[in-house]
């Protein structure tokens, strides 16, 4: 390995390590504030704090670049030398902190009230927090750190937009600009090895811990109503929402409309043709991912056959751009060209990359269904498919929908795979934004980012509305 490559790897690992550390720390503090303090309007806070997770990373990159330009006058200040580096950490931490809050909050909600109360009787709050609560959620803290490290080191759009040379951008440059496929493949293998190693060792260590529960029912959660804790929670949550949601969005709105509505309209006319294809592709990708995720989860949790789960985990750990290269190498030949030159290649990319998310979410729900519910049906002669359709699926419906929405978000905002494999003549939203914003004025870039954000929020709201109706129909909230 050359010194340059080694330094680049160290730099990428350092940035991602810092991002993972900051995000996980925020996840612990805000996870506690959101899930364990006795605050009012908890659901509103939760929704607002999760917004960055719904936004494609490059949108926040655009917003923070605008802020840097407006506030720090990037072109003249000393800040210029490091703003990209700091900017990437800032944007990634903003995006991935909500994921950490979800993972750690989910673990905090699963701790028995009695455990905390018995600790409070013996020691004080400080002892309970550091000696009981933190050790109990340690698996989730590790999961959060490792997942975010992998997400960050694999992410392509933010370093590409901010012009930072990290491993993913380097691989893309070698492959697409210099056509040095061998070097790109070598770098890819190195990154795959690191990601798979991290994820497999994390899974091995905490393979049975629940990484994210959807709808933990019937559990009594200890809420802390001490004035100090509640006020601290309000302050820290409000500050985070202002800093990670309102400031970047306000800047996008300001930049989009500061010279009138012309740039926004121009951005809208550019992006409008891409909305339907992007939505359709993301929906198709999510449906197939959820189906595959369900099958893998059932095999893994009920039948104890983990091979499919492991394969999906490895695919998930492969950075998007590298996964794209692998798809090109496999499908770009005379036999499989009909897939390579169609939307099919994008769907395969999305499904391969993101099905693991469904497996984990649905798997955690299946794990919580008492074995006896299915056994009772077996004894009564209910066939396999009817058992799945009438018992298992309705019981894990909230997780199925949650994983559909998360998959949809990933597919809809995907740039890493799409930029490598999108077929000629295809117009999907992230590609369009990414290619135009390279040479576009700031106001047009901001307008496009704002439109992508608005479309995403609109589609997510629509999906929530539909799913809520279906869940109510199936009486899943028993």
């Amino acid at each position: 390995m050359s010194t340059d490559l080694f330094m680049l790897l160290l730099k990428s690992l350092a940035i991602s390590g810092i991002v993972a550390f900051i995000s996980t720390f925020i996840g612990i503090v805000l996870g506690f504030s959101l899930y364990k303090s006795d605050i009012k309007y908890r659901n509103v806070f939760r929704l607002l704090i999760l917004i960055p997770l719904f936004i494609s990373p490059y949108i926040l990159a655009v917003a923070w670049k605008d802020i840097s330009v407006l506030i720090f006058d990037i072109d003249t200040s000393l800040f210029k030398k490091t703003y990209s580096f700091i900017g990437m950490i800032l944007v990634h931490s903003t995006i991935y902190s909500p994921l950490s809050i979800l993972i750690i909050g989910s673990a905090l909600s699963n701790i028995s009230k009695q455990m905390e109360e018995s600790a409070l009787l013996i020691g004080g709050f400080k002892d309970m927090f550091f000696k009981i609560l933190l050790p109990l959620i340690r698996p989730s803290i590790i999961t959060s750190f490792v997942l975010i490290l992998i997400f960050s080191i694999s992410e392509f759009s933010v370093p590409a937009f901010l012009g930072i040379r990290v491993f993913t951008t380097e691989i893309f440059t070698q492959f697409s600009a210099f056509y040095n496929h061998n070097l790109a493949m070598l770098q890819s293998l190195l990154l795959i090895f690191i990601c798979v190693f991290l994820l497999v060792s994390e899974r091995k260590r905490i393979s049975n811990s629940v990484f994210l529960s959807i709808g933990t029912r019937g559990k009594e959660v200890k809420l802390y109503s001490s004035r100090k804790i509640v006020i601290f929670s309000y302050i820290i949550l409000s500050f985070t929402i202002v800093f990670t949601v309102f400031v970047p969005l306000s800047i996008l709105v300001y930049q989009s409309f500061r010279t009138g509505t012309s740039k926004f309209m121009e951005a809208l006319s550019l992006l409008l043709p891409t909305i339907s294809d992007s939505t359709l592709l993301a929906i198709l990708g999510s449906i197939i991912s959820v189906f595959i995720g369900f099958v893998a989860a059932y095999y893994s949790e009920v039948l104890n056959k983990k091979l499919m789960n492991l394969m999906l985990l490895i695919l998930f750990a492969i950075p998007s751009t590298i996964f794209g290269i692998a798809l090109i190498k496999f499908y770009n030949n005379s036999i499989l060209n009909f897939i390579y030159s169609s939307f099919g290649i994008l769907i395969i990319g999305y499904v391969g990359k993101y099905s693991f998310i469904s497996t984990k979410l649905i798997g955690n729900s299946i794990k919580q269904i008492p074995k006896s519910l299915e056994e009772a049906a077996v004894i009564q002669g209910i066939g396999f498919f009817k058992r799945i359709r009438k018992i298992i699926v309705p019981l894990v419906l909230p997780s199925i929908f949650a994983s559909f929405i998360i998959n949809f978000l990933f597919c809809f905002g995907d740039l890493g795979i799409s930029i490598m494999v999108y077929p000629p003549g295809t117009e999907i939203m992230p590609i369009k934004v990414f290619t135009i914003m390279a040479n576009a004025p700031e106001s047009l870039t901001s307008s496009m980012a704002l439109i992508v954000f608005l479309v995403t929020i609109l589609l997510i709201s629509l999906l929530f509305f539909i799913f809520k109706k279906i869940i109510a129909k199936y009486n899943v909230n028993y």
Partner: protein
Amino acid sequence: MSIIKLKNISHWYSDNRVLDNLNLEIEKNKITYILGSSGSGKTTILRLIAGLEVPDKGEIYIQNIKVSETNKIIVTPDKRQLGYIFQDLALWPHLTVYENISFSLKNMNKSEIEGEVKGILSLFGLDDYLQKFPHQLSGGQQQMVAIARALALKPKILLMDEPLASLDVKSKRKILDYIVSIKEKYDLTIVYVTHDHREAFAIADNIVVINEGKIQESGTAEKIKNSTNDFVKYFIEW
């Protein structure tokens, strides 16, 4: 006359042997209690009879037909003509009482299914709860629904895995009376697992006391009460 026979059954969970060369015969149309402390292997016996576990060694016969043998299920659980009431009752939480009971009824039209379900529920005085969900019922009512569901397929054998553990004494007594009456009405053989010897003494025709996967004593309540086996004496003293 025995309806269930377990011959030389041994069973392990990982390295832990839960049943050790066990031989057991369950008499037809009787209520047989399997008594034992936690981890004694009593639930495993029920699961083996039901076909939910494969024996690591030995053979199981139901109505003189070999249903399981070493590492093999010969007759699948649904073909063994038995009902099973789980410790946690395993009522499907997203289905109403009516749906829970009608779920397994096949080859009937809608009105036949309705008649069947209503007939079973009226036996338990649950006619007004057809459209309720399990969480809307009391603990005792949930037990009744679980029994009604198990009876819907008209089984010959009813396996009950400590289903009354969470009930108060009064509700428990009421359901035990129901169990005795349904046994007569449906001509059932009941195998009931519990750690509560008072419950067993109250209604059992036969009692099998088990410890560490081995039978310590078996026979009528009177025989168990007068047993000279140290474990049995210790167990029923408590």
